[in-house]
């Protein structure tokens, strides 16, 4: 009991010093921390404890890729591919191509032609991930029916497309959000079909949703002539106002070829507009279309809504142009951001949203602090009134325990949330349990007539197995909470789990040292509890 290696004492002291050094940055301003981190070698962790969005304020959003819209796009592409193939194979498409929920049906009445088409269309089905991926799954199921040839997208193909859509969307969203100038935004994949977005400090998500919620697919379509065949014409709503406009279905040029877009002002009217620039290919196409259709109105369509339909006055061959549409500066700016960042490959729906204003966040921090101070004080006083000098040892260990929780959070980069603070307050009550187990055992052993030193020794020894067993059960609960919990609740699991580990170190090792040192000094004849 009395003997412990010098190095143990030294390492405990070193641990405490390291812990203090680790949490110092959390009390400094961000600027000081940054400059300090820049000057010190990189292996020294100069980090602040990360506050969760519920404490610092900010917005959290979970967006889900709309699977039906992914499938719809795929079906449309498939239809174009089939049409192309049939043209190449010179097979008459008398019955047309019917879109189905997850594929297309090519109607061919003649059996010989059907066989020919079937052989031809087989080539559209490809191994998933390209020919080099090596998998056996293919993109399409091709089947012959009495009516014609049926092509259906496989589950694996759709899953693959959704996966792709997520990766692409994350890139696009990153570009959009960066352009907005918000700092420290987190955009990450969550599960198989979701994207998580966290923006610290943001309160009103309306604008953010406008920026990230739009697909932003830009199309240029000619306004329909009365003479156009009805199946090549569609009616689209105007973006502003209630009107509709009839345009040709065929997309002449689309936004995929844009290389730049900036908010600018119309040179004549002074109204805000958006100046865009195409790449070489897009510029040529745009030049051809505008040359061939001088005098006709050209509709600029964003996500199926017509922004405006100006008349082409002269061929536009320079690869640049303007979009006007009664914009405010803000709207023109948003549109420019969207066009620069590119279109989302699929629709994204917000499935979960949590915003905390800075007021509530600060209130939560204050409330958490108050609860921690008062709870800690109650426990400290109670321990001293119950165990006297041993209570003081337990309280010192408790202080180090809290210090270690914060230090390990800073070191691990763990996030402190309000439930996390609750977890710390709970472990304040729980941490002294190990001390209580030891002290009560010491008392018992003393009552059995043991000498002071032998009672102390037996108390520590016998309580230890119980301490381990009881803490393991608690730790398992914390671990599972971490694995299955989400958001702020995870913060609770983190502080609870860390608290259990540090409490064993402090309540067992540190208390033992303190009692041993005290015993050497005081040489008591009687256990003081």
């Amino acid at each position, binding site marked *: 009991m009395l003997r412990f290696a010098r190095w143990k004492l030294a390492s405990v002291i070193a641990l405490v010093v390291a812990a203090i050094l680790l949490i110092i940055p959390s009390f400094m301003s961000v600027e000081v921390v940054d400059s300090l981190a820049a000057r010190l070698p990189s292996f020294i962790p100069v980090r602040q404890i990360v506050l969760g969005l519920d404490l610092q304020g900010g917005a959290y959003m979970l967006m889900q890729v709309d699977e039906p819209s992914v499938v719809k796009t795929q079906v449309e592409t498939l239809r174009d591919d089939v049409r192309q193939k049939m043209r190449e194979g010179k097979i008459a498409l008398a019955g047309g191509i019917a879109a189905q929920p997850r594929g297309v049906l090519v109607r061919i009445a003649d059996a010989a032609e059907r066989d020919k088409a079937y052989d031809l269309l087989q080539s559209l089905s490809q191994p998933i991930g390209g020919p080099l991926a090596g998998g056996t799954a293919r993109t399409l199921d091709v089947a012959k029916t009495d009516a014609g040839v049926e092509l259906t997208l496989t589950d694996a193909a759709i899953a693959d497309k959704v996966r792709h859509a997520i990766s692409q969307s994350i890139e696009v969203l990153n570009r959009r959000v960066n352009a907005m100038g918000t700092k420290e935004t987190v955009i990450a994949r969550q599960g198989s079909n979701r994207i998580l977005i966290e923006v610290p400090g943001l309160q009103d998500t309306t604008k953010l949703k406008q920026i990230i919620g739009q697909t932003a697919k830009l199309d240029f379509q000619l306004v329909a002539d009365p003479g156009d065949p009805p199946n090549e014409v569609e009616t689209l709503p105007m973006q502003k106002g209630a009107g509709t406009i009839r345009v040709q279905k065929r997309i002449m040029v689309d936004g995929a070829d844009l290389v730049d877009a900036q908010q600018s002002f119309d040179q004549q009217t002074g109204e805000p507009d958006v100046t865009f620039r195409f790449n070489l290919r897009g510029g040529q196409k745009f030049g051809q279309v505008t040359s061939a259709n001088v005098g006709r109105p050209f509709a600029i369509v964003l996500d199926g809504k017509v922004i405006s339909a100006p008349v082409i006055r002269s061929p536009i061959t320079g690869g640049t142009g303007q979009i006007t549409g009664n914009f405010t500066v803000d709207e023109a700016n948003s549109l420019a951001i969207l066009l620069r960042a590119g279109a989302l490959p699929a629709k994204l729906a917000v499935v979960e949203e949590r915003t905390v204003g800075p007021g509530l966040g600060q209130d939560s921090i204050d409330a958490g602090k108050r*609860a921690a101070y008062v*709870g800690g004080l109650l426990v400290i006083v109670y321990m001293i009134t*119950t165990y006297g000098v041993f209570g003081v040892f337990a309280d010192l260990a408790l202080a180090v325990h809290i210090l270690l929780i914060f230090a390990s959070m800073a070191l691990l980069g763990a996030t402190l949330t309000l439930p996390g603070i609750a977890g710390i307050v709970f472990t304040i*009550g729980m941490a002294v*349990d190990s001390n209580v187990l030891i002290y009560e055992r010491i008392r018992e052993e003393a009552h059995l007539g043991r000498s002071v030193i032998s009672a102390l020794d037996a108390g520590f020894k016998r309580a230890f197995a119980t301490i381990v067993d009881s803490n393991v059960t608690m730790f398992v609960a914390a671990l*599972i*909470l971490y694995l299955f919990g989400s958001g702020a609740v995870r913060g609770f699991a983190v502080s609870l789990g860390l608290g259990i580990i540090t409490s064993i170190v402090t309540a067992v090792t540190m208390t033992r040292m303190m009692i041993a040192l005290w015993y050497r000094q005081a040489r008591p004849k009687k256990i003081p509890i």
Partner: protein
Amino acid sequence: MKLLRLAPENTNFGFMRLRRVSYPLSAALSIVSVAMFLFVGMNFGIDFAGGTQVDIRARNGEAHIAEIRAKADSLGLGPVEVQQIGGGSDVLLRINVQPGGEQGEQTAIAKVREAFSNDYEFRSVDSVGPSVSAELVQSGTLGVVVAIIAVLTYLWFRFEWQFAVGAIIGTMHDLLLTVGFFCVTQLEFNQTSIAAILTIVGYSLNETVVVLDRIREMMRKYKRMSTADIVDMSVNAVLPRTIMTATTVFLALLALFFLGGHVIRSFSAAMIWGIFVATYSSIFICSPMLIYMGVRADVFDRNREGDAGPAAGAARPPARAKAKA
């Protein structure tokens, strides 16, 4: 200095005789809890029920509840629950899941923002769509089940299986009574409540393990004593510690309940309840289970080598026996 002792010293209560009272009582309370859960139900928060919850504060002065209620009802979002929280200026609005899929919630948020943002500051907006809330229910339930299985496995390795059964019955009891607590109080049941439940499970097992550890130690030592006597002796021996720890945790939670703010009040309340229930069940439910299952001190003879392990109790039994004599 005269030290404070909440627990009387060297007690010799006949806890095990009380099992004839505690078992019927706990059985009745458990049945009531299940019945309450089935017929009354819990007040599920938006985490599990889906919907939107908005916390607003009047920009100047008092919040006008009646006015807010009238305005909220006119938005066409179905019944809106309006509740004053904290001081006079804070109000919580709760809107049920909207029809129209995931987009419905977004429309609701936009409408509420438009209606109130002039006069009220939006302190927090939480909105959970139907697909996410369904998943949260699933992962929450799974978490509790996995936790119980994991801890059961640990106990099975560390103790004899009868001990593990006793512990698990005690834990189930605490779980049911906590569910009953949520049904009776109608406190909002949300993700932090799952955290509370898992912590109560942890605490309950912690309590149980301390008692069972001592029972095992005593059984090794006093092989001729009846199980009931051994259990009684063990519970009495650890009673001061049980009371002491329950008190420190209770003090910490009390501070959390009164000062921690409304966001975690239901969490703190559930935890306080859980501490009481767990302390009760470790003494009156888990320990008597060993008697019912016919555990006898001689279970330790059969596999003596196996469970010597790190249990310090076996370290020097003769010294202790002599001291006792």
